[in-house]
């Protein structure tokens, strides 16, 4: 069953054609990594899935709602589709605990104790229970990102979007974040991950999408074969640049 469907989607910023004729269907439980050079539209593609960016034409069905339809209530989509950002975007004025429980209590109307319980479990899952009362400013980048993941999971989303989740991190903290993501992937979460972590794309992803200039150039379920023998010249060029360094 499909979770996310793009049908002939086009997106413009003014005259700039950011997404060109996107067709992509992602099934429930699938882990899709999106790679490509910067400016290729990867982040834009991701941000359209929870309505942070609107599309101009085509159909974009997420969890049975059409996001291209202006009447669709975006908040309902966002309740079900979480997002993890490159720069974490934790609420600077709230403690870690409040960061995690605010969505469930305010948006899902869960009671406080229940949300608190769940938050503690999630903090265990990401290995940061002792940080419950800290403010984000007291955390390292890797810790912030793990809290941000916990915050998204607290909404019990049907899908999780990751926008370059490790790009702003110190190298030694990247591993902890990737471990948490791997863990979530193994639990069957639908995930779309924009990343430069080729190891993650290769070993955790079920499928890989290569984008350049706003287009999807390759969409491969045989991830190993894609890395060994990319078909598109642009993908060959991109991979050779990344892997030779």
């Amino acid at each position: 069953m499909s979770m996310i469907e793009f049908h002939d989607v086009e997106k413009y910023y003014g005259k700039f054609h950011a997404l060109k004729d996107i067709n992509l269907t992602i099934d429930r439980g699938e882990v899709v990594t999106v790679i490509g050079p910067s400016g290729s539209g990867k982040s834009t593609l991701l941000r359209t899935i929870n309505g942070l960016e609107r599309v101009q034409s085509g159909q974009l069905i997420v969890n049975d709602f059409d996001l291209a339809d202006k009447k669709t209530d975006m908040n309902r989509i966002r309740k079900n589709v979480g997002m993890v950002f490159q720069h974490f975007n934790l609420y600077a004025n709230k403690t870690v605990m409040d960061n995690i429980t605010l969505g469930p209590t305010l948006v899902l109307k869960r009671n406080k104790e229940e949300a608190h319980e769940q938050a503690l479990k999630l903090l265990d899952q990401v290995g940061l229970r002792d940080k419950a009362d800290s403010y984000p400013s007291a955390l390292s980048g890797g810790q912030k990102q793990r809290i941000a993941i916990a915050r998204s999971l607290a909404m019990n989303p049907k899908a999780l979007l990751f926008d370059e989740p490790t790009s702003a991190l110190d190298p030694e903290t990247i591993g902890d974040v990737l471990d948490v993501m791997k863990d979530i992937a193994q639990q069957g979460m639908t995930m779309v991950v924009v990343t430069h972590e080729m190891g993650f794309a290769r070993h955790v992803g079920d499928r890989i999408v290569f984008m350049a200039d706003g287009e999807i150039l390759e969409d491969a379920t045989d991830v190993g074969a894609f890395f060994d023998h990319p078909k598109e010249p642009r993908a060959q060029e991109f991979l050779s640049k990344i892997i030779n360094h």
Partner: protein
Amino acid sequence: MFTILANNWSTLLSGLGYTLMASLIALVGSLVIGTLFALMEISAHRWVAVIGRVYVEVVRNIPLLVITMAFYVIVPTYFVQIDGFTAGTIGLTIYTSAFIAETVRAGIESVAVGQMEGARSVGMTYTQAMVQIIFPQAIKIVIPPLGNQFINLVKNSSILAFVAGFDLMYQGKIIANTTFNTFDTYLAVGLLYLILTMPLSYFMRHLEKKWNVA
């Protein structure tokens, strides 16, 4: 100066009272109206934003005296009878609200875009995100410049003297005209303004410290 204070204390005190009252009303009023227009300025609806922008630009580029006179002269002529105190306080409120709108808008805009996106991404509405995440962060940034606006407001309340608003400046003018002791009178009036503005200034600094803990 002490003779002036001793002989006219009740007049000066009543002036101080009117100044305080006009300032308090204008402070609350301009904060509410200013915040409202700040929200309009950052609205995603283009026309709402344009209205907000035009209000701020027009009001802050007209002298306070002109705005106040407009209320003192035009409103009674064409609409309802209002006294000098009311006209002066309304003028002061409107004038200050434009500056507060700019201050609040700058504060909100200085909160990182990611904070709003983070909040929206868990399904919060725009209002929920504003109330829970953006305002509490913006207020800390806004306190110092807002303090400046409030102090300006108290001093600007002397505009009431031009429209017979019975404020401190107005009473001072009368005392100076009757005693011919201009120097001492205005020295006393200046001191009394300080009595209003110094605690306000101290209070704003206190808030700034208190809210900077988190």
